[in-house]
């Protein structure tokens, strides 16, 4: 499974790509790679499970209204079934599974 997340905004004003592929994770902040590292098998398995859950759950789509420090994320989850794309943002009612994936990627990347 390949997971790619592009986070933008938030209090840090992120422009961050996180790419999980072939058992590695790479973080690219504002176009600059912070390097890649090999995931523990347990981490990789957990991320795969969360990605599958996020793909099944889908995005929220509600109008979030004005949000100070709101964050958006474009997510692409590629598996043998094809590529699943999600677009979420703060306050749009997206399911917990989607945010859990983003949170776990943050932990795994050490970002």
């Amino acid at each position, binding site marked *: 499974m390949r997971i790619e997340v592009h986070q933008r905004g938030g209090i*840090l004003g992120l422009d961050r790509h996180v790419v999980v592929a072939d058992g590695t994770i790479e973080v690219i902040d504002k176009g600059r790679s912070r390097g890649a590292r090999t995931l523990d098998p347990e981490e990789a398995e957990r991320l795969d499970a969360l990605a599958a859950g996020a793909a099944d759950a889908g995005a929220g789509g509600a109008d979030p209204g*004005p*949000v100070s420090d709101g964050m958006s994320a474009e997510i692409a989850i590629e598996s043998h079934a094809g590529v699943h794309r999600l677009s979420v943002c*703060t306050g749009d009612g*997206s399911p917990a599974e989607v945010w859990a994936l983003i*949170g776990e990627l943050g932990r795994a990347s050490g970002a």
Partner: protein
Amino acid sequence: MFGPGAGSERYERVNADLAPLLGTPGVDVEAPFAQAGRTGFFLLAEEPLREDPAAVSARFAGLPESGAVATVYGTRRTALRRTATGTHERFAQLVRGARVVGADVDLHEDDRGVYGVTGRPLGDLQARDPGARPALDPREVLRACAEHFDLTGLRATPPEPVVFPVGDGGAWAYEVRFRVPEDAADVRVHLRADDLSLLLATNLALAATGRARVYPVNPLQTPELVPVELVGLEEPGRLLRGPSLDVAPASGARIVRADRDFTADPADPEFDEPQVFHHATRALDYFRGLTEPPLLAAAPFTPMRIFVRDPGSPDNAYYSPDSGEVHFGLFGDRSSARCASVVTHELGHAVTDAICRLGRAFGRNSESRGLSEGFSDYFAASQLDDPRLGPYIADDPHGARNASDAGLRFPRGFQGEEHDTGAVWAAVLWGLHGRTGAAVADRLVIESLDFLGPTSTFEEARTALHTVDQRLFGSQHGDAIDAEFDARAPAA
């Protein structure tokens, strides 16, 4: 150290005879009113008096009905409430336009007229006149106030000249209100105007006080936990909830402590609740020192709802103007609720939204949203006297952003990601702070917000600073404003 009200006695002092404040010397009771109780001052009328309440309130001062006297002595309505028992109006007695301490007339009305009078009016108001108003420098008054209580960095209301009843006469005094969060004290002080001696000090704080151990700034910069009082809890103080703040986890049960001891292990998720309550209380104290009282006594601060460990906010913390809620998420395993600068930054959004709706721009990355971010960064820097924003959540001692970065410059056309342009605006304000000092810079910044709105630009924000400077300081700081802005202006 932490007992309820600990430290509060320090602010209770009586160096004056309070009899004139507690009685009604010189008041004549006339029909249709009659004393309803054996003691005290509680007048009722069987047949209500159909007369203008303001005129009724003036009757109790014992003044001749002459126009010349009326210009020196009088009453002013200070409160009005409508309840099931009618309308209740409070009038303060005035001498030379100043309130007389303790001298209030409360009128109680129904649809037939005034049926009751309570309060503590003075019936010899003319005898209380101390002559011409004093004209002391407010800074001198505040300095004396701070010395009386051995305080530094006093955040107080501007001193208000009042008449203090003394014996059979009156003396000019200054009334000052200030809070001391670490002592859970909300203090009202009266200082004699002629020698700034202390007449009376009263601690008005009624809220419950809890305790906890917290990181003073954040776990990276101040890794030692310290004991603190959590002030402003609603009685009985079992929850982290009060008139201004209501803290809970985004999911799961909130922390409950019957003994008001909210101490938790940092490894325990519930630690974040008292931690953010502490940071948010300090931030609100900072903003209270800058803003007019009604602002933080209205939504969304009544109370402001704060959620910690929000799984829907990974790598983020945010403020929602529509709901008035603040959400703090985790950055990896680091909770943003533990970072004081992040907490003040988010509350700063609430303040700027309440004043001028700065963050409600049309579309992202507008200049007004950049301003909103920049003001929030600045408020955090000024409150903590540290230009670093979020060093803990970024796991970077330099901070995720740093208002002292020399290289910060607006992009061409002021166009850029709102936190990036905001960082430059924060640097302009932080530079101004360095040139003028915190008090002046904070005043310029907070007052400038009233000239801004959801479509404002950075140039307009500069003009707003100049406008405030001209009106408050005679344009003393115009060169400093321009120097800081021009140093970061976009390249031509």
